Every structure is written in C-alpha cells, then in structure tokens.
C-alpha cells in the first residue's frame, strides 16, 4: 500500500496533534460550530503538510464508507422528520397516558428504542419537546429530571445497533464489525444497561398522582402523509435488508447509503426533494473530523503520542479511556481518535467493543458528552427550565455507576 509522503519534512506531526487538540477544545466549547471548526482544521492541516486529499481518500476508504452510512441515516431522519413522525409519536404519548410514572417509563423506553435506529439528536429533541409540553399543560410537572433521564436512555439505547450512532459506525467500520455482529453483542449490553439505569432513575425520580393533558392531533399517522409512510417503509426495509448485505458482499455502510439513494429515487418526485433537507453540515463535520484525524495519523502523529505505552492493549484500559474521553468531548470525536490507535495495534474485537460501550456510557455521563445532549439541554433552557451541571452530573453518575460496572462485566465475560 502506498503511503502518503509529505512534500516537506517540516513541520513535525506534533503540530497536527496540537491543531486537533485545539479543534476538539473549540468544538466542545462551541458545539454549534463543529462543522466550521473541523473544515478549518482540515484545511490548515492539508496546507501545513501539503497533503494530497485524493490519496487520503484512496488510502482511507473507511472515511467514504462512514460518510455514506451517515448520509443514509440522515436521509431517513429527514424523511421521518418531514413526515412529522417524532411529533406524532409525541402527541400520541401525551394523549394516552395519565400517570407521571408511566410517562416516565414509556418515554425512556421509547427514547432508547428510537435512538437505537434513528438519529439521537432528533429523537431527543422531540422527546424534550414532549417534556416541555407536559410542563406547560401541568404546572406542577418539572421536566428537568425527565430530560436528564431521557438523555441517559438515549445514549445507552444508541449503543444497540450499528446505525444507532455515528460513533458506532466509526467503530463498526474500523473494527470490521458487521450489522448482525454488532446487534448480537452490543444489543444485550445496551438493553441491560438501559434497564438498569432506568430502574435507578425510576427510584430516584419517581412521582405520584394522576393528571390529564388535553392534546389535539396525532391521528395523521393513519392519514395522508406520504413522507411518513415512505419513511417508515424505508426504515423497515433498511432494517430487513441490512443483515443480508454481507451475504451479498456489500459493505454495511455503503449499503445504507446506496439504499437511501435508491429509496429517494423510487419514492417519487416530492420524496426525492427530501435530499435538500439533509443536514449537510453534520455530514461535513463527520467527514472533516475523520479526514483531520486520519491525516494526522498518516503523518505519524498518533505514533508519537502512544509510542511508549501499552495502555491500549488492555480491554479494561480501553474501556475507561473511552469513557473518560467521551465524557470530555463528543463520543464521535472520542472514537475517531481511538480508532487509528486501535487499528495500528491490530486490536482484537474485545478492544473495539470496549471502545464503543465505553463511549456510549461516557457520553451519557456529562451534559456535553454528545451533541444530542447539548441540543436537548439547550431546548430545555430555552423553556426557562435549565438544569444545573451539578444536578445533571449527580443524577447521571448515580444512574450510570452500576451500569459502568455491569457493562464491563458483560464485556469481560461475554465477548
């Protein structure tokens, strides 16, 4: 395999690492500018090291696969969003349930389930809107604890499938883990962790009493809504066909992207226009994040960093490093950094599982652990019911500490 040789030997790869560190700090402080930050970082790195982008793409085909899968999922989310799927589901919950405890359990389970197959950002956003609507409807209802629990459930639920989160896709591609393999190993850990944390959250946050919230709408789910019907059909089709992609010798990630294009094409003229509603900056963010990391890796940046250490040869260490990183920065960024390191060590699957489980739990621990957390909490703050960092950390640490231990035990004995 041809390696990328820079045109000039100066500057050293350390500069690349510094640029990456700066980008990660900036992206944690200003998550809304993630795409901007990583486009700029990548542009600077390419210019500093005079890199050939075409060669990076050829050498690191994984980047295209990951972006293809994220594109497919974004199309699916855009379709369901346009079909008001999340809104209709939320209205139905509000209209049917009376007990706060039932609402708490159902919303958490639904959030975890939907996060396993759809974009966490959209799922959490709509669930937070339901919580806010409940608070508007019933003055004595405080949505802050519910939102905190929803964030935890969403992050733990997203661990279950290959398409549950961008970080899963990055690990799946780099660790060569297919859709079914992912499902068989990660789903039991995800389900157990979600149920355990939910039980703790329920004990901590349960409420008594009964109430009724008057809502209108929600019946369009059976009516004329081509986007919704097509979006749901596409989701079912994707979930049905993905397990067979490896048998057809098609990469899972490429299969998601290809299916999305064909679905848009077959859906008709109006459905095909959903293409313009895809969240392109998110896609650009993922692409430039991976390009930045891989460029630094190709320059030998990570070798300098981990030359003398055997830290990453041990599942326990990888698991806790992954948790720690995901607590500090976005989980996608955490696994994007870990991936080249694990790849260079020819890591076995046990280490890859440790990375993915660790990153999912880590992202549930802090308010800034993932972009979905940040957006959900901002929405809550906009409704003048912001939650303090201390309160969030208190609930999340209490709910997740047993989960961290249980998940590690499952990893240690199960994989």
């Amino acid at each position, binding site marked *: 395999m041809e390696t990328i040789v820079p045109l000039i030997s100066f500057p050293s790869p350390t500069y690349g690492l510094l640029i990456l560190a700066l980008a990660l700090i900036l992206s944690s402080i200003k998550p809304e*500018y993630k795409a901007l930050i990583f486009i700029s970082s990548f542009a600077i790195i390419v210019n500093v090291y005079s890199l050939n982008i*075409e060669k990076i793409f050829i050498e690191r085909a994984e980047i*295209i696969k990951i972006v293809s899968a994220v594109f497919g999922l974004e199309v699916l989310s855009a379709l369901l969003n346009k079909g008001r799927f999340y809104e209709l589901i939320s209205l139905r919950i509000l209209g049917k349930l009376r007990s706060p405890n039932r609402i708490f359990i159902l919303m958490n389970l639904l959030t975890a389930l939907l996060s396993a197959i759809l974009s966490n950002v959209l799922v959490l956003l709509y669930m937070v809107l339901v919580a806010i609507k409940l608070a508007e409807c019933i003055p004595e209802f405080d949505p802050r604890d519910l939102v905190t629990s929803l964030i935890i459930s969403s992050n733990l639920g997203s661990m279950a499938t290959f398409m549950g989160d961008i970080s899963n896709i990055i690990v799946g591609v780099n660790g060569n883990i297919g859709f079914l393999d992912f499902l068989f190993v990660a789903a039991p850990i995800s389900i157990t962790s979600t149920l355990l944390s939910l039980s703790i959250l329920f004990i901590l946050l349960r409420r008594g009493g009964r109430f009724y919230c008057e809502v209108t709408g929600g019946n369009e789910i059976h009516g004329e809504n081509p986007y919704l019907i097509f979006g749901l059909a596409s989701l079912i089709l994707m979930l049905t066909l993905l397990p067979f992609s490896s048998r057809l010798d098609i990469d899972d990630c490429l299969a998601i992207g290809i299916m999305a294009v064909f679905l848009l094409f077959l859906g008709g003229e109006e459905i095909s226009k959903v*293409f313009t509603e895809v969240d392109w900056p998110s896609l*650009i963010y993922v692409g430039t994040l991976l390009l930045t990391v891989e460029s630094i890796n190709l320059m030998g940046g990570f070798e300098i960093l981990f030359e003398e250490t055997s830290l990453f040869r041990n599942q326990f260490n990888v698991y806790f490093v992954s948790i720690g990183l995901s607590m500090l920065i976005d989980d996608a960024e955490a696994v994007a950094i870990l991936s080249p390191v694990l790849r260079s060590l020819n890591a076995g699957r046990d280490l890859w599982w440790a990375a993915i489980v660790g990153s999912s739990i880590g992202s549930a621990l802090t308010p800034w652990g993932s972009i979905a957390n940040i957006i959900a909490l901002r929405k809550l703050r906009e409704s003048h019911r912001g939650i303090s960092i201390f309160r969030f950390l208190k609930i999340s640490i209490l709910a997740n500490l047993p989960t961290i231990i249980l998940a590690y035990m499952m990893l240690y004995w199960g994989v």
Partner: protein
Amino acid sequence: MRRHYIVPAILLLLTLIYFPLRDYSVLEPKQLQTILVFIALFLMLAMEYRHRTVASLTSLLILWFLGILKGEDMIHYLDLDVLGLLFGMMVIVETLREARFLSMLVRVLISLGFRKIYHLTIILSLFTFITSAFLDNATVMLIIIPMTLGICETLNLGRVAVPVLIALSISSNLGGALTPIGDPPNIMAYSYLRISFIGFILNIGPPTLLIYAISLVAIMTLFRREMVLEIRDKNNKDKLKIEKNSFLIISILTLVFVLLLFLLQDLTKISPSTSALYGATFLMIIGGRRMAPILREVNWDLLIFLGSILIFSGSLEKVGILHLLAQIISKSTHGNPHILITLIAWLSSLISALVDNIPYAAVMIPVVDELVGLTGCHKLWWVFLLSVGLGGIATPIASVPSLLTYSALRDKFGLKFLEFMKIGLLMWIILTLSLNLYYLL
C-alpha cells in the same frame, strides 16, 4: 403529470433495447450500457423527473453495479480542484451576501440619478454583468431583481421594468461566461485547462464583451419606445445610506485577496482552488458565529450534483465513448475548423437551452479537448464555453437568471412563458450568430 408515465416507459424501453443492441451494435457491452444510462440520466434531468442530484447519484450507482465504475475510479474522477474552487467561492459569495455587499452596491447605483430608461438599463446591466463575472449568478439576480423592481416602482415605471429585467438576465448569463469563476462550466474548463486566470479572461473576454455590447444594442432596438422614456422622479438620492460594517470590509478584502491570488497564479504557483479555500477558511475563522448559518446556506446540493456529474463524465471517458464522439465529430466535419466552430456554437447553445449546462459541459470538455488536439483549433474552447453560456438566455427555464427573471415578471406583470421565450429566442439567435461570425471572420 405526463412525465410520470413517459419517463418510466422510456427507461423501460432503454433497458429492453439493450439486448438487441448488444447483439447487433459495433459498440462493446460496457460502452452500450454507459450510453443507455447516460441517455436515461439526460432524459430525467431534462424532464425534471426526480431531484437532479438523486437522479445523477442513482445513475452512478447503476454504473457501479454494472461494474463500469469502481470505488477508486469515483475518487479519481471526482475533480477536487473543481469542487474546492466552487465551495470556496460559494462560502465567499454567501459571506458577501450576508454582509449586504450587493445591496450596498445597488444603493450606490441608485444614488447616481437616472434621466432616461436606457441610462438605468445600461448602468444596472453593467453592474449585473460585472458582478456575475465574479459572483454566483443566482445570488446576483436574487438581489438585483427585487432592487430593480423597487426602483421601477419608486419611479412609477410600470411595465417598463420588463425590458430592463430581461436585459439584466442576459447580462448575468453573459457575465458568468467572462471569467473562470463566473459559472460552473467555466470553473470546470478552467480546472481542466490549467490556464492562468488572466490567460482565460484574455481569451474569452473580447468576444464576451462584444456579444454583451450587441445584446445591449439589440435590447435597446427591440424596446426603443420604452428606452427613450424620461424618468421624472429625481428624489432617489436619499437611498444612499450605507451603514458601517466591519464584516463587510473584511469580506470584500478577502474577495480582493482571492482574486489577486487568481491573477498572480503564475507567480505564486497557488492553484485557484487552494486560493479560494484560503479565502473561505480565513472567513470561517474570522467570521465566528455568522459563519454557521452561512455554511448551511452553501449550495451543497449543487456541489454533490457537480461531483456526481464529473464522475459520470469520467466513466464515459473510461469506456472510450468520449473518444468515439470526438472521432465522429471530427470525421463528419472533415476536421474543418469553420464547420467545427459553427457546429459547436449552435449545438452547445441549443443543448444548454434545453437541459442543465453542467452535465453537458462535464461531458463535452474532454471531447472539445480531443477535438482541439485533432484540429489544432484552440478557438473551439472559447466557442464552446460562450455558447454554453448563451444557451441560458433562450428559454425561461434555460438558466437560473432567466428562470428568476421570468418568475418575477410573471408574478408582477403577468408575463407569459411564450412572451418571454419569444424575446429570449430572438436574442439567442442574434447572439449565437454574432459568436459564430466572430470566430469565423
């Protein structure tokens, strides 16, 4: 609604005729398959059967399934220079728009005070021509159309706005042809030719300026009654209220810097795409919170569409169809440069009038290159690029400036499609003929 039945029927027909064609055609199966997919794509784009990017991506996937394209080919044919240049310029233009650069310029123009309609038309048209040469045509027209309508309304000009706006639409189309960054086909050719920025303008500039002057004269003649009307309202100097805006100054300086880098390309050896990306990156770092919405406003759809079309064009080149096409054109014209110039001028402008000029340009650039190689007639490049630009004025749907102008005139004055097309076709014939004669004489 007819296209919903016609297009699938034709697609089915194309699939079915492959089998007899495979047995009787002199073409290889892969060449035949690529041609059929290409026809299907062109048909879908011409009839707007699906969103254009979805249609082009689907066609690429079909080529991939057929084994004609491989993953490495896609990366190879994806001309990152073209995409980088376009993306960089999009960011700069969007930033300028956000900083109200064009509005400021129009305000300055209004403050000049006009006595007759033709003064107004010439000034606004020159403004549109020059700005379209450096900025995205759609952005320019989106600013200039409401401004012009506003001026005409303030001055009580009524339907006189129709010829003024038509002149602006033509100016925008021609302005886009003036520089390497004016229009996507120019960007593609610029990247392909590896010529200097000034070299490009020196070649295409004189005929473009001449054709532009002819277009103004033609409009003045066609609408001579309206053009000599007096403008009575002189109270328009108060429009000059330019607010202080440091972001605007930074954006303008960035554009000037990038243009300077383009001009000094031979000296600095910095490629146009790198120059544009320098400017864009600088603005992204400096612009701060303003840049996040700007990044969202970037025409990602166009970038992906252009990328997919470039790959498609690469696949046509890979299977040898473009070489075949160049051979056929060269043989049928006996390599005669005069016939070739005439053929390219009329064919290119006609096709660009009917379908999107981006896929046409992507396919034809390698063909024109080969024809230039076979005949040694370098003029073909400039004939081709200008005629692609001219095609945009023929019909209301031939280009973005025409479409935007037609939509505004229809909404405001009830102008009919055929009324617009009558003027457009007449101007198209006059200007293509002028282009043809310029290169023949």
